[in-house]
């Protein structure tokens, strides 16, 4: 990819920047490894120095020295404010402390429900995936969940999921509250290799917000099995700046994630 100023950035850099800009200062974010971690670290080094990073295994507010390979890696509690436990962190989520949560998965539907468990029948799966991990907890408890999926296609943006591992808006407006999930939270943004999506307030269906540079609305629609809502005005994702790219490569000097 390239931008007007000849800044040749990669897809991973674009996605990391798009995610990073969503994170506000003085808020708390629950992250996994990979791009979400990089996005949160970039936010701390740019517009959100007081962003609180929380890991599910118990690391809270670390000064991450280099990219962790696991959410329990000792780098997730390096110079942290707290090295506690999964119970402590999940309890904080349940109690309402965590503003943002990152999710990723094998397939998503129009309401932001997510599958990371199986394809095929649950009893005899054709593909067995790892399951919820902390995803169901993040999707249930965090105020705003952000999905990162680098493989948008009609096979991953599905009309009907074979298995709902993690709740999005379930079957639409009011459905989360009706089943007893905490009120006022749920899917916020979906970032894929093609664009950035939000969710329509009225229908809770996925809605296009921005196309990445060079991507058309037709391509967006062609890469989804369900219809994506398209508002009158669709913007273009702001490309990474040279300064953001410089910071990203300081965060991931060996391109462990950025090189993927």
């Amino acid at each position, binding site marked *: 990819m390239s931008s007007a100023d000849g800044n040749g950035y990669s897809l991973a850099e674009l996605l990391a920047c798009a995610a990073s800009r969503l994170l506000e200062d003085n808020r708390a974010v629950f992250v996994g490894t990979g791009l979400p971690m990089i996005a949160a670290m970039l936010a701390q080094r740019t517009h959100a120095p007081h962003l609180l990073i929380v890991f599910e295994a118990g690391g809270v507010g670390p000064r991450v020295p280099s990219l962790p390979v696991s959410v329990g890696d000792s780098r997730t509690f390096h110079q942290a404010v707290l090295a506690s436990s999964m119970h402590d962190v999940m309890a904080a989520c349940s109690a309402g402390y965590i503003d943002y949560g990152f999710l990723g998965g094998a397939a998503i539907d129009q309401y932001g429900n997510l599958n990371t468990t199986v394809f095929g029948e649950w009893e005899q799966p054709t593909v067995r995936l790892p399951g919820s991990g902390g995803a169901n*907890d993040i999707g249930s408890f965090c105020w705003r969940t952000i999905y990162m999926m680098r493989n948008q296609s009609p096979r991953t943006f599905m009309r009907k999921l074979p298995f709902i591992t993690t709740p999005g808006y379930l079957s639409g407006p009011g459905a989360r509250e009706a089943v007893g999930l905490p009120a006022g939270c749920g899917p916020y943004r979906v970032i894929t290799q093609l664009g950035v999506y939000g969710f329509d307030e009225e229908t809770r269906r996925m809605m296009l917000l921005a196309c990445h540079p060079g991507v058309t609305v037709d391509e967006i629609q062609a890469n989804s099995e369900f219809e994506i809502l398209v508002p009158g005005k669709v913007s273009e994702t702001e490309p990474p700046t040279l300064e953001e790219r410089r910071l990203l490569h300081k965060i991931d000097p060996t391109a462990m994630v950025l090189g993927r």
Partner: protein
Amino acid sequence: MEIVDSGRGELIGWHDPDENRAWVRDHKPRGLIDKRMSVADAVGRFVHDGDYIAVGGFGHIRTPMALIYEIIRQGRRDLAVAGKTAVHDLDILIGGGCVSKVECAYSFGHEMRGLSPCGRRAVESGQVKVVAETSNGAYQWRFLAGMMGIPFIPARNLLGTDTFARSSCKTALDPWSGKPVVLIPAAYPDVALLHVPRCDCYGNAQIDGILVEDLELARAARRVLVTTEEIVPESVIRQDPRQTAIPYYVVDAVCHVPYGAHPAQMPYLYFFDEKHIAEWLRLSKTVEGTDRYMERYVRGVADFDEYLDRVGGLGRMQELQQIETGQEEEAGQ
């Protein structure tokens, strides 16, 4: 309390709270007993065919691998395993033919290192059965209810999903708010396996860094086997009792096993052995390769000391120590 919905997953590791209290009264050691023993003795005495086991630490972090290898060497069968970010431990146990059931929160994957060829093959072929789904948080709270000796704990996750439908949980109306809540049943694993940096001979154990699930798990499990990098005098524990994560009265065996988490990471002591993990992920792509790994590193060695020799001995351990303590850049990165 009105039950609104019930998950269809198999409930494993649950006991009537009075039955479990009586079991605790009759079996858990309130007297100070020197519990040091070999890993072979600990597994021989406390791990049985068909047991429901849970492993402390997180994924590839602070994983009690010496106990895992010994369970395979002693040929345990039909284990049910708590798949709560069960990564290398569960994968190796499946490869060793020890596992028939998994309750899955996160299993069959290796986080950023990719999916597990061995675990996936076992589930997709029917060799291992997933008997229930849950989330990491919900599994954590099974142990929380277990350590409290209560039958269940109410929570607000899982609701509205297939994860709930395949779980062993129920949904009821909260008598106060009137809103639906999920009831997460207690879990009392038959055996918990833990690795810690230091412990006295009675089982008073300290953990450096995150506790992950070990505090709740150790108190919920019926039998607790602890391997430790170092055995310290009781006076070290009594000097700073706030550091005790696991008290002696929940512990049944203490085994002195330096580097006992290899190839997993031991916070502040040694780093992941990426070379060895990669070798397992490569070999376990086939059944033959899996058997070759078992022969080379598990069944074909007498004990953990011999295993350490095969993976590079003290020289390799010192390299991993230097990476973890920041004295050396991670090789190949």
